[in-house]
């Protein structure tokens, strides 16, 4: 115990004294460069966890949500613009992104313990998983949808009558947000009994 204390004391004495041999300029510049490298490295590593390759490196994601995404308009469409996992599931704003990444550490636990490692387990958890995302998107006013789908750029005359009617009323006055109506657009919906009565068989 005393040894550790002595070691800590030694460390503090070194840190608290001004540098004898190294110039202030050297320390400042090297500190700055080290900071840039550390910060850049941190963000690059985090961006790597935002790639589709990373997300689909687990068979849980590759075989279930990613397979379902491929039949939808967010993967295959006439203009070839597409969304990858993180476009919808990770906030673009830095602080929100960090918060989401910390939450995702729980998902790493799920991966290690095999919470959804079979199709059956995935189906059993599908409602809960979907509800997590609906709650998140409801709370942030469908921010991830709006990163691409700008309300101000929507031309109602180019929409179908039904779409224009809903978008110009409920969406425009903030009564509803994207996710309220557009559930299950990128992945299959679970049995919605208890969520939206009348849309699922008993």
């Amino acid at each position, binding site marked *: 115990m005393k040894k550790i204390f002595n070691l800590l004391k030694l460390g503090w004495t070194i840190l608290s004294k001004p540098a004898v041999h190294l110039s202030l300029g050297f320390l400042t510049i090297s500190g700055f460069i080290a900071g840039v490298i550390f910060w850049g490295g941190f963000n690059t590593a985090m961006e790597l966890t935002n790639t589709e390759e990373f997300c689909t490196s687990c068979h849980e994601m590759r075989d279930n949500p990613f397979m379902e995404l491929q039949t939808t308009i967010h993967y295959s469409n006439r203009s070839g613009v597409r969304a990858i996992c993180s476009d919808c599931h990770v906030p673009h704003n830095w602080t929100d992104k960090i918060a989401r990444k910390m939450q995702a550490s729980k998902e790493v636990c799920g991966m290690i313990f095999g919470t959804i490692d079979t199709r059956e387990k995935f189906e059993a958890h599908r409602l809960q998983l979907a509800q997590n995302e609906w709650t998140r998107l409801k709370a942030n006013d469908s921010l991830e949808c709006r990163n691409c789908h700008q309300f101000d750029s929507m031309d109602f005359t180019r929409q179908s009558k039904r779409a224009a009617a809903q978008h110009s009323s409920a969406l425009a006055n903030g009564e509803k947000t994207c996710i309220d109506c557009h559930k299950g657009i990128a992945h299959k919906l679970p*049995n919605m009994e208890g969520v939206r009565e009348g849309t699922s*068989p008993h």
Partner: protein
Amino acid sequence: MKNTFINKVSTFCMTAVLAASSIVLPSTVSAETVMDDAPQVATLRGTAPMNVEVTPPIIDKVENNDLKRKRDYPQQPPTIPHDISKYQLDKNFNKCMDCHARKFADESQAPAVSVTHYMNRDGEFLGEVSPRRYFCTQCHVHQLESEPLVENEFVDMNKLIQQSHARDKN
């Protein structure tokens, strides 16, 4: 030994009949000429041989005008006047009912499905859509903006009644 002989004779007869028919048939039934007619309904490949890749026709636009079509007879399930591509309709979820359920008619302004959809086969009313009516597209279909492949010769009930009245007068 005798059996083998009979077998041989019958095989010979069969072969003879088949050979004869193959000579006679092309001249009597004009199967070839039917196959060569340009628009075929039976197969969208037309008359293209099996080993030839044909260019598929352009996919027609789905009617999406939200206008009710006339029903040709009282029991006809109304057609779907809008696009339903990628609508989920499986044992988990029915996208149609997301708007057409009775309880969502106010927010969606979509026609609520009729009360018959809530009846079981004994005519009893259920709280939810009857399982036998659950899969909407078994009866209700969307329409394409395309030319019909065959002429529709359907005569509706009103016309039949008119015709019979006209006959009675004469």
